[in-house]
């Protein structure tokens, strides 16, 4: 009988976290740079006297640290590692804006602005933007845009000055009248009362262009809670069909680095720890098959 083929492990295919409650997968990480378990152990040595070698050696702790290196950012990563499930929004064929919200003073009031909305017929001009509306006088406002990343969508928008103002002239606000922010596909509606704003009061809103999907999430609430999860890590299938899998029953990780670097894809390096699952009476399981 000849020697059997050596079992080797090559590459990474995917990592799939799953719910410890239902067993259902959260999703799959396919664009992943690595998913490794350290499993490095510690040896406790008894040294003493003039001996240059240990008198005794016993085993210490074994680290079950998992290093995940996703290069994609699906919603479940935010839920598992930052403790907050994002809101996944359906496609928006008419673009969208968020609610106009006071930032400084009181601009959103019956004597000021009532709301902001997408201007009918100008949906294709709506950009991905963060806006600040400021009262320029009792009856006029200026609008500022905090990034020009999408400023050329539809009708080009332009900055008017280095302070990121996008309105060439202050917009006149009148009672219950929708006033377009030119070239941006959105309109501000005046309050129901006699307009009398306080100069320098501000309000903010965000806009989202026509899209096939979107998400948003607010991270950092005191109620956010990173979840325990199970994790199936699968090596790349080898040329001979050989496959290798680790199923870590119970894992916990915190933190999700997001890198915005010049000419580079963001790659997170997430540290998680696999630990004892009393139901399974184990920490992880390994499967291997050579078809």
């Amino acid at each position, binding site marked *: 009988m000849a020697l059997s083929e050596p079992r080797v492990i090559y590459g990474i295919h995917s990592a799939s976290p799953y719910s410890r409650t239902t067993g259902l997968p959260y999703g799959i990480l396919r664009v992943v740079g690595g998913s490794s378990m350290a499993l490095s152990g510690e040896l406790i040595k008894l040294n003493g006297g003039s001996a240059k070698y240990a008198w005794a050696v016993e085993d210490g702790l074994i680290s079950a640290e998992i290093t995940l290196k996703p290069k994609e950012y699906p919603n479940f990563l935010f839920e598992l590692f930052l403790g907050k499930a994002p809101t996944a929004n359906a496609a928006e064929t008419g673009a969208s804006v968020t609610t106009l919200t006071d930032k400084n003073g009181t601009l959103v009031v019956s004597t000021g602005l009532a709301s902001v909305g997408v201007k009918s017929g100008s949906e294709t001009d709506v950009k991905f933007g963060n806006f600040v509306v400021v009262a320029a006088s009792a009856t006029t406002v200026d609008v500022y845009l905090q990034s020009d990343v999408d400023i050329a969508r539809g009708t080009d928008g332009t900055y008017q000055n280095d302070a990121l103002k996008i309105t060439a002239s202050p917009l006149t*606000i009148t009672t219950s009248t929708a006033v377009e922010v030119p070239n941006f596909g959105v309109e501000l509606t005046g309050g129901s009362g*006699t307009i009398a704003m306080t100069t320098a009061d501000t309000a903010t809103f965000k806009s989202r262009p026509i899209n096939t999907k979107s998400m948003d999430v607010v991270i950092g609430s005191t109620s956010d809670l990173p979840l325990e999860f199970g994790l199936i890590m699968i090596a790349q299938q080898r040329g001979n069909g050989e496959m290798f899998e680790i199923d870590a029953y119970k894992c916990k990780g915190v933190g999700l680095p997001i890198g915005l670097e010049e000419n580079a894809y963001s790659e997170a390096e997430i540290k998680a720890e696999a630990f004892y699952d009393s139901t399974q009476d184990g920490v992880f399981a390994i499967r291997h098959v050579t078809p």
Partner: protein
Amino acid sequence: MAKKKYKEDQDTWSESDNDLQRLVAKKDWSIHQNDFHREIKQGDDVSDLEQKFLDCLKAEGVI
């Protein structure tokens, strides 16, 4: 002589009527709302503006 006085009176009356109808801007101002744009100079008659814009001009101390 009587005819001339009549004409002077007519002129005076005419000016008085116009003054009653005119709304004169006390300072420069501009209005920009959707497709409506108006640059107002001090001394301009703005009586042709819609009431909603006149309300603005009052609030801004233009009239």
